[in-house]
């Protein structure tokens, strides 16, 4: 079935993740050129460039689409840059898709890249007492892992999850990442090694928490008509995109907030924010959890991957531990394979590139080009992540 909302993925490209310490523009351009070559589309044929911004690299990062367009050589292409924290890549893809579906352009380039500092992601310098992201560090000392740990501890106290359950997620993803040339960490890890690593934010150990990385990812996307004219055969299609915000009152406390919304006057919605992210992409695409072969979820922590199993509909609340213990979500398991790329556990987070990298992985999986980490016979996949300040991000793809 082809809906009139479909667009084609003609090309996918990445610059390997790492701590390279070079300018983010280099990673973006490497990824863009790889995607253009993969698509067989020339740079001068790109009509629209959607950039996912980085906040840590000065002005060029705030106008990323123009930055990448200039670096590739001004060609007169139209541009739009967007920022939605970790969801920026999906927002950039949604922007490109809207241009294509509106008939305003035929073929577009989507690029995100980042150069990150060492250690915890911290706010930009200077006193900003009206910025919640500054305030949570100053008043509470609440880092990103603090919030991941709150969710992890809740699984333990409510569902009986153990630190070993969380470690199993890391072990699975580390094994997947061995086969991914773009992954930063390609080394097998044991459960005991995870549990022996120092605790950062109880109950999460250092090896439960994703690092920050440099990296770049890019996609060449087009209308289905352009893909046919281009001789693309049966390209992987984007079937649905969700960039939803929460519905008030969101009673789950979210980074970087001090408090959840209040449900004193209005009852909470039927779906939590995280549940609603893929729900919107499933509804648009007509593809649901039962149709999936593969999922790329945002494992900022190993425990958070278990939350996502439930949020994207792989199982009911409290059942995710069973999936990881039964090996259902591992390559060759009985269920939907989760994070065959190795996930953030093997990549570390390169914020504006990450949601695009998720789509690159699903594209390669659906083309059967994922090598030693290939999910056999993959026909449909989903990506999901959540960006700071209320940004949902999910993309449903199929052959």
């Amino acid at each position, binding site marked *: 079935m082809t809906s009139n909302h479909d667009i084609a993925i003609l090309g996918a490209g990445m610059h390997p993740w790492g701590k390279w310490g070079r300018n983010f523009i280099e990673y973006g351009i490497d990824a863009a050129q790889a995607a253009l070559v993969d698509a067989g589309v020339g740079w001068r044929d790109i009509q629209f460039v959607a950039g996912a911004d980085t906040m840590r690299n000065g002005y060029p990062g705030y106008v990323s689409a123009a930055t990448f367009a200039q670096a590739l050589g001004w060609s007169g292409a139209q541009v739009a840059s967007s920022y939605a924290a970790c969801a920026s890549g999906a927002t950039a893809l949604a922007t490109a898709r809207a241009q294509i579906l509106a008939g305003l352009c035929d073929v577009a380039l989507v690029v995100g890249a980042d150069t990150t500092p060492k250690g915890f992601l911290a706010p930009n310098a200077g006193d900003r007492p009206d910025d919640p992201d500054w305030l949570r560090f100053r008043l509470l000392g609440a880092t990103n892992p603090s919030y991941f740990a709150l969710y992890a501890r809740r699984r333990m*106290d409510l569902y009986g999850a153990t630190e070993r359950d969380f470690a199993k997620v890391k072990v699975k993803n580390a094994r997947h990442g061995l086969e991914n040339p773009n992954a930063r960490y390609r080394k097998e890890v044991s459960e005991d090694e995870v549990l022996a690593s120092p605790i950062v934010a109880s109950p999460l150990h250092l090896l439960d928490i994703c690092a920050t990385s440099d990296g770049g990812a890019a996609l060449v996307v087009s209308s289905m008509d352009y893909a046919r004219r281009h001789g693309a055969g049966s390209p992987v299609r984007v079937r649905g995109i969700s960039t939803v915000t929460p519905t008030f009152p969101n009673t789950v406390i979210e980074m970087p907030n001090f408090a959840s919304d209040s449900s004193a006057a209005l009852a909470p919605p039927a779906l939590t924010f995280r549940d609603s992210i893929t729900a919107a992409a499933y509804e648009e695409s007509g593809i649901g959890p039962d149709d999936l072969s593969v999922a790329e979820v945002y494992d900022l922590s190993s425990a958070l991957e278990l939350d996502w199993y439930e949020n994207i509909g792989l199982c009911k609340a409290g059942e995710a531990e069973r999936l990881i213990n039964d090996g259902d979500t591992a390559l060759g398991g009985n269920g939907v394979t989760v994070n065959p790329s190795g996930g953030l556990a093997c990549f570390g987070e390169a914020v504006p590139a990450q949601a695009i990298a998720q789509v690159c992985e699903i594209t390669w999986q659906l083309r059967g080009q994922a090598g030693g980490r290939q999910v056999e016979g993959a026909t449909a996949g989903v990506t999901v992540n959540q960006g700071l300040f209320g940004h949902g991000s999910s993309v449903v793809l199929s052959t």
Partner: protein
Amino acid sequence: MSKTRTPALGAEGWFTEDGDAPALVGNKCISCGTVFFPAASFFCRNPDCDGRDFESTRLSTRGTVWSYTDAQYQPPAPFVATADPYEPFALAAVELPAEGMVVLGQLAAGYGVDDLSVGSPVELVVETLFEDDDHEYTIWKWKPAS
């Protein structure tokens, strides 16, 4: 000379030590009754309400633990460390039933994650967050209660 006791920069007006017990101070939409912490500034954020007028409200001073963690490594600036070497502290997200909301805070000095479980009761206290030569900068914290 004693130091001036004042809320930490950014938290002015967020809590009070006046009255019988310290309390967080938020505000409440006069039209729909939704509570906000920190206080809402301009518009009610209930999508079905167009209220613009709020009254100040003291939040419940007791609640139950929604979840909890600690910080075993020193957070980056603008966090201000109070001890050298760094001393870990704990955080609790606390459910306030009357307000239908969860509020994050550090755990009172001397308490850690072993003192809590999801659902256990806590109460609000005000303690020093950090000091300089002239000031004691204060903040709200959660303290395990019986």
